[in-house]
């Protein structure tokens, strides 16, 4: 192991999006900063079976395009949805979400909706199954609305016998 560090730093290297968005919206003239959810208690479910026997579902914050489905996304009025993994379009609708449009792109759905990766892990026997449908949830300003959406996804997961949910916010 080399003794020399790779870098010398004076600030933490990973980005604080809470800080960044507060400062950005303040500079845009908004008086009140967004108030992010924070909890002291965190629920935890231990996995009670081997990965190789688990049914895995994906939850995304992206939406289908209008022309692909009734669940297609306008920028407003989005509804929580489920969609067959066998019927995923080449592109997902991401334009209205907040992500780094200068540094990267979302043309490859596997970079945020990893259904192909999961299928290859099924093929190799690492996990038991990829759930037959994935789930999409709008990124709501209202935490109360997100709570209701979460209830819908929880009941779909229970219906499908999902053991593990892989949640991938864009």
């Amino acid at each position, binding site marked *: 192991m080399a003794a020399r560090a790779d870098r010398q730093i004076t600030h933490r290297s*990973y980005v604080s999006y809470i800080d960044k968005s507060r400062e950005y919206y303040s500079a845009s003239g908004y008086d009140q900063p967004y108030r992010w959810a924070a909890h002291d208690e965190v629920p935890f*479910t231990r996995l009670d079976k081997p990965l190789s026997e688990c049914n895995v579902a994906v939850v995304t914050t992206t939406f289908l395009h209008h022309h692909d489905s009734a669940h297609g996304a306008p920028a407003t009025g989005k509804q929580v949805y489920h969609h067959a993994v066998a019927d995923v379009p080449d592109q997902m609708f991401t334009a209205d979400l907040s992500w780094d449009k200068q*540094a990267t792109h*979302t043309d490859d759905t596997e970079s945020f909706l990893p259904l192909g*990766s999961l299928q290859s892990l099924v093929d190799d026997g690492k996990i038991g199954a990829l759930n037959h449908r994935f789930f999409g949830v709008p990124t709501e300003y209202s935490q109360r609305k997100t709570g209701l959406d979460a209830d819908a*996804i929880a009941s779909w997961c229970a219906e499908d016998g999902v053991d593990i949910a892989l949640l991938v*916010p864009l």
Partner: protein
Amino acid sequence: MSLVARKLEAQGIATVVVGSARDIVEECGVARMLFVDFPLGNPTGKPNDREMQRSIVSLALDVVDTAIGPRSTVQAPIRWGTDDWRTAFMEIGEHNIDKLRAAGEKRRAAQAGS
């Protein structure tokens, strides 16, 4: 999304959040997070890098399998390659401060009118 993870955990479904906004997820409080230190947009790997994408997803599943308790964060052992995006995203400076304020005013006016 972290609120969804919490709800699923409370109902007996094991979860992992694979994401790049570490502070938002950790402050909300989730059972498990795989932190991918990339610009927002590609939490499960660089576009078209199938090998990287598969290794991230595989690691996320290992985090589900091996976490000993809540608030388990693992950082994926990969780097984007450049660092300029860290400051360039939502950057505020002399060059855009007037533009930002004007855009904010326009948005507020539109919202007030709708």
